């Protein structure tokens, strides 16, 4: 921002083209032209570097994801490398062994990409829609909570615990999402709960 002014002045004076370059002015114009014709058959390759958050735990370490190809330019992008983000105040570029192996989980054949269900009596998993999956989960949670909710302990003190279910929430959410998740889950009485609001 601050330097745009001086750059514009410069761009006005030094136009593009071999004639208006330092190399040309010093008498190196021919090698500049030779280079330009040598590289003609080559093209530029797009790569990207994108910030993200490690998917694993509530520490929510910053990561940089590198890919070949740029989705913003209408290309397919293939993730080539993932490393810790040195600019991120939480981890300063460091990652735990799980985080350091993120590329393998991205590329893993076994990685879960949509909800799957193994129905009663079946020996294999099959695809299921998100709507159906969430309905089934809600029903199962309701049944479990109705059966196992502890309103008072042995001393008659109100405790409102639900100890037979656990809840693991995402690590890469906003403060608002983390707050809402915490309120929803805790208000059901679940104690076995983790999301990044813990940290």
């Amino acid at each position: 921002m601050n330097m745009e002014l001086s750059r514009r002045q410069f761009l006005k004076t030094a136009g593009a083209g071999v004639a208006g370059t330092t190399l040309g002015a010093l008498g190196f114009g021919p090698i500049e032209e030779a280079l330009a014709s040598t590289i003609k058959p080559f093209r530029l390759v797009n790569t990207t570097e994108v910030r993200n958050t490690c998917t694993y735990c509530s520490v929510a370490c910053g990561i940089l994801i590198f890919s070949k190809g740029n989705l913003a330019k209408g290309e397919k992008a293939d993730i080539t490398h993932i490393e810790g983000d040195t600019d991120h105040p939480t981890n300063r570029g460091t990652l735990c062994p799980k985080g350091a192996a993120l590329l393998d989980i991205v590329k893993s054949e076994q990685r879960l990409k949509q909800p799957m269900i193994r129905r009663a009596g079946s020996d294999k998993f099959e695809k299921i829609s998100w709507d159906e999956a969430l309905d089934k989960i809600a029903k199962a949670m309701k049944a479990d909570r109705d059966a196992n909710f502890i309103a008072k302990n042995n001393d008659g003190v109100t405790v409102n615990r639900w100890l037979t279910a656990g809840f693991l929430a995402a690590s890469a959410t906003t403060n608002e999402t983390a707050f809402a998740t915490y309120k929803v889950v805790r208000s059901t009485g679940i104690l076995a709960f983790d999301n990044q609001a813990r940290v």
Partner: protein
Amino acid sequence: MHVTREVREVIMSRTFGPSSAPPIPDPSVLEGVTAPTFAYLPDPSILFARRAARFRHLAQNNPLAPYLTFLAGLCEAQHAAIAATPAPEPVEAAQVERARANEMPPLDRSHFTTDAAFDTLFERALAEATKIEQPEAARTALERVRMASDVARGEMIRNVLASSIPEEALAEHLYVAAALEAHFARLASQLDAARLVPVGDGVCPTCGGPPVGSLIVNWPTSHGARYCACALCGTLWNYVRVRCTACGSTAGIGYQEMEGGNGAVKAETCDTCHAYSKVFYLTQDDGLDPVADDVASLALDIKQKDGPYRRAAFNPFLLGY
């Protein structure tokens, strides 16, 4: 849990035997992951010699070899001039503190005045530059600079410090810029890096100038951090990665490299201000020099001329792109 040094030593001695045993790995070195140091100031006694060596290295099997060799000679002239002339007076402490308090660079380009130390360095650098093998056009330009009146010389100095070079005198300004680089690197080296503060996006905290490019470093204390390199004084300052060095935007950042490249030099393109600047990955090649490799990767700039992005970097050795 906080483990004191004493407790750690007890644990270590229990685990690995008494301390008289051979040195054992110290896990405390794994602690203390800190933020990268904000700025590194140049060491003018080695900066230009190293750059010259890099230019000579890059010149091997390179279509730009004659130019790279010429610039190696110019860097050697900078180095020789620094070695042969007395250091300039340091910037007054009051000015440094005033700049710091107001988040301004301590070296004020807009009020730069030449002094005896600069004049001596300037003359010496140009005299050294005459020894370089160079095309007739370059030699003529060098002679014009050496013969220039004080007024004309002052004008060229102001142009370089404003990063605004008139198209008809690119060659003359290259020599002036080389002398100014040597002088400002010396002035910068006399400052205290710990007393520098950020003065703006893509602006050198020492002299207020634009960067020539940025380095992704592989140094043990700040692995993977990015440092912008000042085109004039050689200061390296920490700058967030995947963020445009020209406008500070983090949206629409992409990278482009030459087909078949090893990922050591990429153009960081910005869809907000439509500028690009080069990023040098020391993790891929730890010999990279921001100035030398900027020139050696000219192919990338030639390719960008067809594209929507303009060059944001300032490098007096590579103007016109």
